[in-house]
C-alpha cells in the first residue's frame, strides 16, 4: 500500500467566546464544520472518514459524537475518536494525518471542540487531581501539600513558571510582554476570544496576582469553540487548491507526570519546566520532515501556551533557540507579526482556549498562514515551514506537527 503525502485543504473555525448559550455542542461544531467544507470547496460526500475529540468531562457528555456526529456529516461514515486531554486537538489532527498517510483513507475531516460553558472545566481538571489525591492519601502524603495542586491547571503552571524564570533569566516583565503581544495579535483574529488591541505590558502588570509569578493577565480564558480541518492526499490537494499546506510530519511524546500518581506512576524528580518530551517530539518531527536546522528553516511557530511563560519555554523546547534565550529573542522583536520568526500570530491559547480544540487550532493557524488566508494577522514574511505544538496532561504529554508549502520528499 502506497504511503500518501498529506495536505490540509480546508480549515473552519466557529465563533469563539466564553459562553455560547445560543447553540448546543453539536450546533457549535456545525459552525466550524460548515465553514471548513466551504473553505475546501468540498461536500460531506467527499469525506472518507472523520476523526474527532474533545475533553468529555468538560461538557458532561460521554462520547458526544454518538448524538452529535450527524451534525458534521459523519452519517454512515467511519469515525475515530481520539482524546488526550489538552493535546486532544493536536492528537485529532495527527489522527487525520495518519488516516491519510496510511493509505486507508483519501480525505479525512478532523473535528475538535469544547463547550466549557456546558460543564465545569476546573471540576473536570480536578478529577485529575482528585484521583491522584486519593492515591496520595493512601501513600500517606500530607493533604496540605496536595492543596497546592488545587485550582485546575494553574497549580502545575506556577511551579513551572518559577522554575523557568530561574533557569532562563525570564522576568515578570517578559511575561507581561508575551501577554501583550498575544492579545494584540488576537485583536486581528476574527476567531479569537480575548481581543485587547493596544494592550501594553504595563497594563498586564496591573492585573491581579493569582499566585506568584502568574497574574490574571498571564492566563487563558475559558472558551467555547470548535475547529475543523480537512486532510487529503497531496495529489488531490493539488487539484483542489493552488496552495495546500502539506503536513510534513507529526510526532508526540509522553513523559511521566511531574506529580506522583497511583501505583508509583509519575515522579517528583522531574522539573515541570524541563519538558524533555517536547524536545524529543520536536526532534523526531524535524527528522521526519527532513529539517536539519529548525532555527533557520522554521518560519513561524504556534506553541501551545495558556500561560505566558509557556510561550517562551516551549519556543526553546521546540528547539528554536538555545535554552534560556527565548526572553532575549522576544526582546529583539523577532516574535512579532513582522519579525523573523513570528510566534502565535493567532493570538495563541492565552487569548482563546476551547481546550479540546486548542491544540488543533495551532495546526490550523500554521496551515492558514502557509495558505496565506490570515487577513490582517497574516505575517509579513513568506511562510514556507511552520511548527505547531500542544501540551496536555500534567504538562507531560507533548504533540508537534510540521507544515510546509512544499511536500515531504
Amino acid at each position, binding site marked *: *500500500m502506497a*504511503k500518501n503525502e498529506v495536505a490540509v485543504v480546508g480549515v473552519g473555525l466557529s465563533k469563539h467566546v466564553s459562553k455560547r448559550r445560543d447553540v448546543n*455542542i453539536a450546533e457549535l461544531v456545525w459552525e466550524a464544520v460548515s465553514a471548513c467544507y466551504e473553505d475546501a470547496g468540498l461536500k460531506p460526500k467527499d469525506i472518507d472518514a472523520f476523526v474527532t475529540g474533545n*475533553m*468529555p*468531562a*468538560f461538557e*458532561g*457528555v*460521554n*462520547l458526544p459524537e*454518538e*448524538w452529535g*456526529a*450527524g451534525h458534521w456529516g*459523519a*452519517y*454512515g*461514515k*467511519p*469515525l*475515530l*475518536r*481520539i*482524546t*488526550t*486531554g*489538552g493535546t486532544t486537538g493536536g*492528537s485529532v489532527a495527527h*489522527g487525520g494525518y*495518519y488516516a491519510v*498517510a*496510511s*493509505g*486507508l483513507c483519501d480525505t479525512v475531516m478532523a473535528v475538535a471542540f469544547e463547550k466549557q460553558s*456546558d460543564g465545569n472545566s476546573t471540576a473536570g*481538571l480536578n*478529577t*485529575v487531581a*482528585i*484521583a491522584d489525591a486519593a492515591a496520595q492519601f493512601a501513600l500517606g502524603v500530607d493533604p496540605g501539600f496536595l492543596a497546592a495542586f488545587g485550582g485546575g491547571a494553574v497549580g502545575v503552571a506556577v511551579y513551572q513558571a518559577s522554575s523557568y524564570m530561574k533557569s532562563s533569566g525570564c522576568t515578570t516583565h517578559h511575561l507581561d510582554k508575551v501577554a501583550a503581544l498575544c492579545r494584540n495579535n488576537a485583536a486581528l483574529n476574527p476567531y479569537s476570544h480575548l481581543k485587547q488591541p493596544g494592550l501594553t505590558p504595563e497594563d498586564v502588570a496591573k492585573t491581579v496576582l493569582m499566585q506568584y509569578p502568574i497574574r490574571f493577565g498571564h492566563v487563558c480564558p475559558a472558551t467555547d469553540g470548535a475547529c475543523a480541518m480537512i486532510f487529503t492526499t497531496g495529489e488531490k490537494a493539488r487539484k483542489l487548491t493552488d496552495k495546500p499546506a502539506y503536513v510534513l*510530519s507529526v510526532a*508526540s*511524546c*509522553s513523559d*511521566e*507526570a511531574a506529580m506522583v*500518581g497511583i*501505583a*508509583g*506512576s*509519575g515522579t517528583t524528580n522531574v522539573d515541570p519546566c524541563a519538558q*524533555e518530551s517536547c524536545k*524529543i*517530539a520536536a526532534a*523526531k518531527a524535524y527528522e*521526519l520532515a527532513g529539517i536539519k536546522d529548525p532555527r533557520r528553516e522554521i518560519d513561524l511557530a504556534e506553541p501551545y501556551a495558556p500561560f505566558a511563560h509557556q510561550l517562551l519555554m516551549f519556543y526553546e523546547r521546540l528547539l528554536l533557540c538555545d535554552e534560556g534565550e527565548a526572553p532575549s529573542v522576544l526582546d529583539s522583536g523577532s516574535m512579532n507579526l513582522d519579525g523573523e520568526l513570528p510566534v502565535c500570530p493567532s493570538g495563541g491559547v492565552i487569548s482563546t482556549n476551547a481546550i479540546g480544540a486548542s491544540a488543533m487550532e495551532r495546526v490550523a493557524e500554521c496551515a492558514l498562514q502557509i495558505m496565506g488566508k490570515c487577513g490582517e494577522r497574516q505575517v509579513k514574511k513568506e511562510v514556507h515551514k511552520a511548527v505547531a505544538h500542544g501540551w496536555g*496532561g*500534567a504538562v507531560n*504529554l507533548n504533540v508537534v506537527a510540521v507544515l510546509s508549502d512544499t511536500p515531504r520528499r
Partner: protein
Amino acid sequence: MDKEVAIIAYAQTPYEADANASREMQVLQVAKAALEAAGLKRDELDTVITANNDYLDGRTISNMRLVEPSGAWRKNESKVEMDGAYAVLYALMRILSGDHGIAMVVGESQASVYAGYVPGTMMLDPTFDRQRGLLNEVSAAALQARAYMHASGVTEEQIAGVAAKNLGNAAKNPLALRSDAGADAAKVLASRMLYSPIRELMTSALCDGACAIILASGKAATKAEKPVWIKGVGFSHDSYLTERSLSRLTSLKDAASRCYSMAGIENPASQIDLAEVHECFAHEELMAYEALGFCPEGEGGAFFDSGATRIDGSLPVNASGGAMCANVVCAAGMARIIEASMQIRGEAGERQVEGVKTALAHGQTGICAQENIVFVLGGE
C-alpha cells in the same frame, strides 16, 4: 492488504468482577506479558495507543497515568476513546503511514469502579433523552431487540439460545468471568427480567480487565513466530438511536463490506472459518450474523438454529464465550481480536476449533452498537 502488518503478540488479564489490582497494575501486567511474548524490549516500541474512557475511569485524561505501565514513557503515545479494536485500527494506521514499525495497544476498564450503566446514559442526547431518564444502555438495547425480533421473526428462545451457547463455550475459557457448561435457553429465560425481552443472562458481563496487543510491520513481523496478518479492516458510524432503524445493524453491514473488499472476501460464510463478535446483548449476535453476511437478512434466527455458529459448527461464533462471559468495555473488541488470533495460531486449548485459517473479529462503541469495526485476520 497482503502481509503488511501483523499481530505478533498479545496478553489479557483474567476477567474478574472486582480485580485485586489497580488499572495501572493490570495494564503493566498485560504490557509486560505481551512484550515478553513478542521477545521485544520496551525500547523497541515506536508508538503506544491506549483505549480507555474518561467517564469509566472517573478521571479526565484517563491515559495520563498509563504512560509508564503501558510502556509509553518518552514514546509517541495517543489514546482512542472507543472500543480497543479502534485503538488497534489507529496503531495500524500509524504503522501503514511508514512513520512507525512496532506498536503496542492496550485497553482497559474496571467495572468495579464505575457506576454500572450510568456512564452509558451520558451518551444520550443531553437536551432531551438523557434528562427524561427512561433510556439507558439496557432499555435502549431492549427497544433494539424488539425492533429486530419484529423485523426478522426472531424469538426470545433463539436469543436465549445465543446466551446459553456463549456461556457454554465460556466454560472452556479459563479467563472467563461468567460461564455455565450446562446452560440452556430455558435457564436463560428463567433469569431475572430487566427490560422485556432482555433478561439478566442476555446481558454481557461487565468486569475488570485489560488487554495488550503488539502490531508490527516489515522484518519484525516476518521474523515473528506465527504472525497473524491483518487482511482487512472496515469501520462505520450510524445515526443517533432515535434517528435510525434499530432493527438492523446498518453500520456493521457497512463496516463489513469495507473490510471484505480490502480482504478479498466475497462469500463470508464460506471464506471465514471463525468469528468473534462483540455482543453487548445476546440478540446483537443474531443481528451481526445478518449484518456480517453470514446469512441473508432476516434469517439470523434460522442460521442460529442450524447449529452453524456452535463451536462444532461450520462457522463458530464466539468460541471464547464472547462478551456474555466478560465485557471489559474499552478492551472487549481487543479480546475478540486476541481470541481470533489464538484460534488461528492454534493456542485456544480446550476450545480450539480445527483448521482456522481466516477469522473475523468485531468491536462496537455507543448505545445499540452505533459504531462498528470489523477486522479479518489470517495466518500464513
